[in-house]
């Protein structure tokens, strides 16, 4: 009984990203249309890059199978056992492009809801100031997480990580807008924190908070309007026309690391909650003051 590994491909799932050929050129080459031609037998010396290639496939079209050759019967037929381990991603989910995109989207949804409520407090700020302050502090966590996950993609792209390079940068306009989204977000939150720390009636922080809000609102409107339509597709793993899928209704893409993504979002919210609870007393001096003229 000899054990060996074989690469299996689901050709209906493969969309020709070509990541596998980058990671396992010894066994996989691309045809003239960009689809992999695979020599399925994987010697043990190539087991590690083969696993990487299987894991990196953005549509999970590849599988590794352990093959037992039954030599006693001299039977060319093989008993195949799907090696499930390679489908379950280790808790470093964000190294996958799709997982990263989903984390960004998931955090985006949390922020969309959070900032929507925050926006509503503006309508009756004198009554809801405490909530406004508390929520603002709470959202620091998710905002940092979102900057982190997009920053990760940014870093992987510019350090030349193959899957991220293939995924490419955002659309040119969004690529331009991105830094402003981040800077204005940090400005709004930062000036808000300074308002709490400095207390009422001191310094220009209120003006800066309002001014940065106006800029942030402009950037964010463009940002949200661009991405909100893609949220369901990204989160549900259905094709959205940006992932290179042929048509809708193929397979729901299951991306491992879902637990890790929820954990990260939960941790960001928990961190924000801690900040909010620790700073909530700062709203006291502001209470009851008229500050929107």
């Amino acid at each position: 009984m000899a054990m060996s590994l074989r690469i299996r491909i689901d050709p209906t799932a493969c969309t020709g990203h070509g990541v596998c050929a980058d990671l396992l050129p010894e066994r996989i080459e691309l045809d003239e249309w960009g689809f992999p031609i695979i020599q399925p037998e994987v010697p043990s010396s190539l087991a590690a890059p083969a696993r990487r290639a299987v894991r990196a496939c953005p549509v999970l079209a590849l599988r590794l199978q352990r093959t037992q050759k039954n030599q006693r019967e001299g039977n060319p037929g093989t008993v195949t056992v799907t090696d499930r381990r390679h489908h379950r991603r280790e808790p470093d989910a964000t190294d996958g492009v799709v997982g990263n995109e989903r984390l960004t989207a998931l955090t985006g949804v949390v922020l969309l809801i959070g900032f929507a409520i925050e926006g509503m407090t503006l309508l009756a700020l004198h009554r809801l100031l405490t909530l406004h302050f508390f929520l603002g502090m709470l959202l620091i966590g998710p905002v940092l997480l979102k900057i982190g996950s997009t920053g990760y993609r940014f870093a992987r792209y510019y350090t030349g990580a193959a899957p991220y390079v293939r995924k490419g940068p955002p659309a040119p306009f969004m690529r331009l807008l991105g830094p402003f989204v981040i800077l204005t977000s940090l400005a709004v939150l930062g000036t808000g924190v300074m308002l709490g720390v400095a207390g009422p009636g001191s310094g220009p922080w209120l003006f800066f908070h309002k001014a940065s809000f106006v800029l942030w609102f402009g950037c964010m409107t463009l940002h949200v309007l661009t991405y909100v339509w893609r949220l369901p597709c990204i989160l549900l793993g259905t094709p959205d026309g940006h992932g290179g899928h042929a048509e809708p209704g193929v397979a729901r893409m299951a991306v491992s690391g879902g637990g890790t993504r929820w954990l990260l979002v939960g941790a960001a919210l928990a961190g924000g909650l801690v900040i909010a609870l620790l700073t909530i007393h700062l709203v006291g001096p502001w209470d009851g003051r008229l500050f929107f003229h």
Partner: protein
Amino acid sequence: MSTQTTRPLAARLTVGWHQAARPASLGEHHARYGPRPEAGRDLAGAVAAAGLTGRGGAGFPTGVKMRAVAARRGPAVVVVNGMESEPASEKDQALLARAPHLVLDGAVLAAHAVGAGTVHVCLDRARDQQITALMRAVGERRRARVDPVPVMVHGLPRHYVSSEETSLVRWLNGGEARPVTAPPRPSDRGVGRHPTLVDNVETLAHVALVARYGPAWFRSAGSSDAPGTFLVTAAGAVAGPGVYEIEGGTLVGDVLEMSGAVDDGFVLLGGYGGTWHPMREAAQLPLTAAGLRAAGASPGAGLVLALAPSSCGLAETTRILGYLAREGAQQCGPCRFGLPAIADDFAQLAAGRPEDGVLDRLHRRLGVIPGRGACRHPDGAVRLATSALNAFASDVRAHAAGHPCAAFRRGRTAAGLPIPRPRAEGQWR
């Protein structure tokens, strides 16, 4: 080859066809074959002993498949494949139009043998009359209370690859009639995740006869490596196109002769995913899987298609390749991009206006496409193209040098093979 019979034509499935131009009623069916025997659990064993093979084209041993499904735990499902999507093939349509009850007998017997609680009959949606006739036959049986399991008739969208067994299962599960990557095979996990037996209509008609008369009777016709009788379709440049029932082991030449092929030109064996051969060479070979294997050919679903002497084989192949390229499920990259590419290469070649290096490019493409799809559709197209390059080698040289043959210059080929018109895309459900 052994025990070659002298009588090429045999009438088992085709008993009484000449008298009737309509489907046999249940009464006529019983008068012809007797009532359906009590189903025995050992039917799979009898079918295996009979040596019956699938008549949909793949030629897999039916007994083995029945045993595999029967061995699985839980209730099974039987799917009757009457799609017959091979454009030139007419045998399944002819069988269903004359002897629907023989097919349904086989399906119900198979259902009992594998422990299935349901029989699904899958037909081409575009064949209204056939669907009506089958519904009527099923209704007749329901009223006569002859079947212990419900039989349901379905009309599926017509595409070349929709008759693939995983396409039927996917459609019956509420999806599109497009092939799925196996494993899991339908015999392991098919309709409703139950083990599923998918069999061609002719195969099931033979099952009904094996259940009645036994494996020894079944083997009394045909050769040892192709026992029983086979329905074949002869078409193209023949005087008598149509469906013939032949004994296993009958020579290709006999089929050509009985259907009145007019010339010793070329013949396409096995259908549009089959192979071209000079008639003179193919005539000596038995029209069986074993008999054709050495020539790199297969009977497929029993197709013998003669090329008109006035036709250009490259032009005809180009038409077929274009059809096969359009008819893919558009799921797998190598098929989706590869088949149109080789069809284009062939079109250039046939027109006698090839780009530089088109032959090298074509050979390279034919080398990388096979075996990389979810189904065998791309493999068939490549097989056809490769065999055309071999069979029409002298034409290929002339066309590649910019001198298309006289037949091509005359324009439309004479007795062209049927190419169904393209249908609206996206009709897979």
